[in-house]
């Protein structure tokens, strides 16, 4: 299989650069991710990969790759001068020995987690990241807002039902809580703007973002969970909770691990209850920063406070690494500070 994959790379490289590669000039590094296998392709002793294959033979996972291909394909056809270099380009797709693959451009830069941790004590640097992320999301979502002509009845309902089903599958849900949630949905659904649907990434977190210090730009990858008729604001909230989780995990690591130990925190930074409260409910530097960004975002999309609170509920239900207690906290405390 290796040689067939290398032939694809050689063809692509020749198309771009007009010259041939030898097989020995290509190296692969494999990452077995949740949804597919990723082969990073290094060419001619380059320090960073030039391409990557996303590949799987699992038929259940084909749909994720096809979603990513479709979304990136549509994005590349749109005219986004300010963000056109901030997501992968799909260069090809096909089948190799019963495996479905897509070939993409690889991003340049360091992992955003590293950058966040590097600017640990610098509030200015953290603000800069947040503003950059917020502006990027605003730009992307503005450009991919659903045309009112394309909107259809029941879109919000579909999003809501799918989200609720995901939550129930993971955590289970008591009848009383479910009734409260459905009641919130019913209160908002008639008021929700018909065209407030955007291209939602749905896994928007520091893990899926690279940061290029030289250009001061981000690169967002892993679009396999994306949806064109998704809901606004949720990507920003996802980012915020994961960002908070990373900062907290770093603080804990600094305090707890002894100077002479060889310990490493392998399961980093899935935000816990305290992170959730600090990010959204308690008044502190972080929540004030987030509040500013959320306010800017909501103004851009004319989201009322009711709609924002509803979207916050859906964020809790949908967040991939959510803890069950987040919902309880929301139902207990109501509208978060960041929306006030």
């Amino acid at each position, binding site marked *: *299989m*290796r*040689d067939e*994959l290398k032939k694809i790379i050689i063809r692509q490289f020749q198309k771009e650069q007009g010259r041939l590669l030898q097989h020995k000039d290509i*190296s*692969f*590094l*494999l*990452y*077995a991710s949740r949804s597919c*296998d990723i*082969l*990073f392709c*290094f060419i001619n*002793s*380059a*320090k*960073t*990969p030039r391409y990557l294959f996303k*590949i799987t*033979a*699992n038929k259940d996972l084909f749909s994720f790759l096809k979603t990513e291909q479709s979304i990136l394909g549509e994005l590349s056809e749109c005219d986004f001068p300010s963000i056109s270099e901030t997501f992968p380009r799909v260069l090809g797709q096909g089948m190799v*020995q*019963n*495996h479905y693959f897509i070939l993409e451009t690889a991003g340049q830069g*360091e*992992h955003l*987690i*590293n950058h966040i*941790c590097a600017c*640990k004590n610098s509030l200015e640097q953290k603000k800069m990241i947040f503003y950059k992320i917020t502006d990027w999301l605003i730009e992307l979502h503005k450009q991919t807002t659903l045309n009112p002509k394309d909107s259809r009845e029941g879109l919000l309902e579909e999003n809501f039902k799918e989200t609720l089903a995901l939550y129930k599958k993971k955590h289970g849900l008591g009848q009383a809580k479910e009734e409260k949630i459905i009641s919130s949905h019913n209160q908002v659904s008639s008021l929700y703007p018909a065209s407030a649907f955007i291209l939602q990434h749905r896994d928007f977190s520091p*893990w899926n973002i690279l940061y290029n210090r030289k250009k001061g730009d981000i690169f967002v990858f892993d679009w396999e969970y994306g949806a064109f008729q998704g809901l606004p604001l949720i990507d920003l909230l996802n980012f915020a909770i994961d960002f908070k989780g990373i900062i907290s*995990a*770093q603080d*804990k*690591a600094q305090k707890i*691990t*002894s*100077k*002479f*130990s*060889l*310990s*490493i*925190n*392998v399961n*980093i*930074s899935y935000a816990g209850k305290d992170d959730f409260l600090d990010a959204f409910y308690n008044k502190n530097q972080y929540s004030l920063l987030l509040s500013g960004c959320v306010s800017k975002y909501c103004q851009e999309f004319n989201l009322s406070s009711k709609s924002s609170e509803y979207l916050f509920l859906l964020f809790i239900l949908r967040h991939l690494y959510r803890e069950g207690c987040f919902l309880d906290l929301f139902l207990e405390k109501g509208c978060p500070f960041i929306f006030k």
Partner: protein
Amino acid sequence: MEQKEFVCPLCKKELRQEADAYLCRECSCKWKIKDGIPVFLKEEIPYWAEIPQVEARAFNQLAQKEGWRKAVESLSSQSLKEYIFHESRINWKYFVPSDVSGVILDAGSGWGSLSFPFNDYCEKIYSLEPAWERINFIKIRRDQDQLYNLVPVCGDTLNLPFPDSYFDVVFYSGVLEWLGTSNTKEKPDDLQKKALAEVIRVLKPGGSLYIGVENRLAFFYFLGVKDPHAGLRFSTLMPRFLADLYSKIVRKKSYREYLYSYNALKRLLKKSGFDEVKIFTPIPSYLNYKYIVPLDSGYPFNYWLKNVLATRIPFASAVLRLIFGFLKIIPPVTLVAVLKYFVPDYAIIAVKSKKQ
């Protein structure tokens, strides 16, 4: 009826299938078929597995009666449960030059945790295992899932019951280091060479062998971590004769669980007749990895270090952060040239010459 997929494991001549056995025309050896599984062993091999034999038998009975999934769920050993279910251990297939959709041999298949995932991609896969309870489980699972391109065979990696040039890919995951324990009359490395010679014989020209194995010089052995095979500290770092003496004193038996270093593995495979030998490191281990990183070029390893491991380092102790800070300043080529000798495990792809 003549049977071409199997040959006599001893004389390599054709077999004739009878009602419940295969008969060798040349040497007249009879190889029984037990519960639908051909058994190519002259004598039963002493049981060895992760769970006691009594438990393994009960496990198979439960699998037969209530389904293999339920039987696996009921296992007391969490690690064995995960080992059987986990499927990402076949991602090394992308590094294999030959056709992974052809005819495959899983030599030393254990409970089938590589055979079953591979079954979805290939034309036919033979699952070879000497321990009866394990190969019986594989057959039970095969039958229940109706995966009839998977052929369970009870046999020995030192005497493969397959014809010459039959397989596109052979895999040896967690097998090489145990070959020396199968027969105490021959030297362990001779047994390993014999097994590799058998692999060369059954591979098609251009076919590939995949090996997953621990590194003799893995850095943690220097810190006193016990070798999981022999159960001894520092034994992998000693010259073989010294490790043997140490083992006889401590364990009252010879040291036969031979591991190899990076260079020694390359030499062993080249001498066995493999043309091309590529070595990778599966991280964290070949049994359950997230990454496979090539070791012949510095840049992928360096990229992994700086982009993957680096995302974990801020959450590590001060000692690790210091070590990592030092590693970052070393040029990539130098870094991998040194570190490749001390990584925990190796994943190796060895290719038989197309001219053989």
